[in-house]
């Protein structure tokens, strides 16, 4: 009821971007902090390896995160609204399998793109309908569809692979727009702006924050909560379809194990970007910087031939650190006050 009271006293409804906390000012500068980490990683990498500062190498490095980041943008909105979608990597597998199947039937590139986007949309709609229509918790629903979608790919493909994608289809994942600037990177930059505008400058974006902070209050203030959430699942599904097109194009082949384990990397990217895993706060610029940090860390470690296991450990520690840091700081502040 606090929302309606706020309405009476203040005609302009103020919904905070972030949860109120003693650390609001620190959280407000989260992106600055992350940017500092990004710059530090960049500088350390350039000192650690003589090969880091090479335009083509940096361009190659962007492929480590562009596809995951495309999904992370949509996932950020979903997590801000208090939901999650763990089936995104499996949607990639299913969309890629459908595109591979279409190739066998003689489909050309435009049809393949439509198939990829369409399957993504359908998967998103399926998740959204189960969550908003039946009121099931999204984490349970999408753990289920995670197995379901990839399971279909395994049934269709088994240990086989679809290949033979048309030559012009390779542009999405292997093409360059200008010099070292790849198509994927342009798409990443474009989507970053689009999602930033959507979340931070539109009524829809405000509604997403409100729902994440107080779903009941949102309902009472006239926001059609199920409809917004359904739209977010659709959006996540479509962006998974876009990522499927890019990844399939880059690999030139589809196997049911494609993009295995990406859902966790996408969620890691979102949380590292400062989005509260419980919903209600977070920004797109934060996710963009987090994408750069993760991409540069993996590439920098790769240049030093650090084994992948060590990389996973580092990313894990980074994530725990990022989540724990505000809490530790809050306790210390509270202790000082007490």
């Amino acid at each position, binding site marked *: 009821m606090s929302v309606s009271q706020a309405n009476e006293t203040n005609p302009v409804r103020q919904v905070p971007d972030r949860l109120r906390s003693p650390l609001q000012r620190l959280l407000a500068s989260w992106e600055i902090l992350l940017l500092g980490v990004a710059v530090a990683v960049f500088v350390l990498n350039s000192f650690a390896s003589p090969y880091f500062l090479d335009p083509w190498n940096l361009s190659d490095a962007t492929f480590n995160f562009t596809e995951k980041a495309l999904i992370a943008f949509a996932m950020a909105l979903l997590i801000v609204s208090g939901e999650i979608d763990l089936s995104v990597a499996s949607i990639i597998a299913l969309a890629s399998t459908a595109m591979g199947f279409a190739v066998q039937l003689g489909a050309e590139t435009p049809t393949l793109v439509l198939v990829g986007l369409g399957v993504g949309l359908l998967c998103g709609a399926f998740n959204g309908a189960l969550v908003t229509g039946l009121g099931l918790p999204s984490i349970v629903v999408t753990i289920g569809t995670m197995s379901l979608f990839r399971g279909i790919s395994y049934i269709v493909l088994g240990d086989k*692979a679809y290949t033979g994608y048309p030559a012009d289809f390779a542009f999405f994942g292997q093409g360059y727009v200008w010099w070292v600037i790849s198509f994927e990177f342009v798409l990443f930059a474009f989507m970053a702006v689009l999602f930033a505008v959507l979340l931070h400058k539109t009524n829809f974006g405000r509604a997403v924050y409100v729902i994440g902070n107080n779903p009941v209050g949102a309902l009472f203030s006239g926001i059609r909560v199920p409809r917004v959430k359904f739209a977010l699942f659709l959006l996540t599904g479509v962006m998974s379809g876009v990522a499927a097109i890019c990844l399939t194009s880059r690999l030139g082949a589809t196997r049911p194990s494609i993009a295995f384990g990406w859902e966790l990397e996408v969620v890691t990217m979102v949380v590292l970007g400062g989005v509260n895993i419980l919903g209600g706060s977070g920004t797109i610029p934060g996710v963009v910087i987090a994408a750069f940090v993760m991409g540069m860390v993996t590439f920098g470690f*790769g240049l030093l*031939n650090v084994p*992948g296991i060590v990389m996973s450990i580092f990313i894990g520690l980074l994530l725990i650190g990022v989540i724990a840091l505000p809490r530790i700081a809050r306790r210390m502040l509270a202790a000082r006050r007490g």
Partner: protein
Amino acid sequence: MKLLKSLLAATAVAAMCIAVPAQAETKRIALVVKALGIGFFEAAAKGAEEAAKELGDVEIIYTGPTDTTAEGQIEVINALIAQKVDAIAVSANDQDALVPALKKAMQRGITVISWDSGVAADGRQLHLNPSSNALIGNMIIKLAADHLPDGGDVAVLSASATATNQNTWIEEMNKVKDNYPGINVVATVYGDDLADKSYREAQGLMQSYPDLKAIIAPTSVGIVAAAQAVSDAEKAGQVNVTGLGLPSEMAGHIDSGASKSFAIWNPIDLGYSATMLAYNLAAGNAEAKPGAEIPMGRMGSLTLNDNNEGAMADPFVYDSSNIDDFKDIF
């Protein structure tokens, strides 16, 4: 964001101005495996280091993803391209998905070969098979014959009747069996690569052919089950189980005498040969083209077929003299 972009741009420009660091004299050869932490590949890396020591001016970069995914291997390959390594020798997680990344490597002057698990022909210069069907077919009957100087009845315990690999090997074996006089192949049975079914089929063979001297199982499941059946029937010493198996699974049966020897490719030799081949191609000592013979140190030389593929050697024989060295490896 803006800051980062301008920083990126600035450093990119700076990188253009700074001269590329001088290439060291040593050849850097990357051994890319399906995933790190697999005994078979750790052994291959050991072989690669052996080759590097022998060659002198070679640095081995042993690397691979955490999971056996194509995407993980592509990230690793991109990092290797960026380091301007001299050669990449890869055991592929996906024969098609790696092709674009490896093509890029070759465009930038890096020697690319595949070994163990191959890459489609346009994604590598040559592929090193651990062995060939003909060599395996010959080896499995030779293993049985070696311990039967006076000849005798032998039977084959295969995987399923439709298993392509096993059928090809048995076919190749039948082509050369006349070279082993006195060896009588009396039956071929199928255990479907199931432990319990293979066990029962082996029991059946011993009952149907009381004079049976050897069971040849060209499958790692079948050979273990057959050896177990022989042990349980207390016929160790009378019936010799041989074929293709893994040292870790067969060590106990070698000790008990149910199996005198068996074969499988030697990962150390494989890593050694892959390194030698990559070195010779990168150094310009040889060219990968159909019919070429490329030297690979102590392993002789690799003859390439029309598809630029070649077979390394006979499968390596494991017996009581060397099993302890390999049983912890794979």
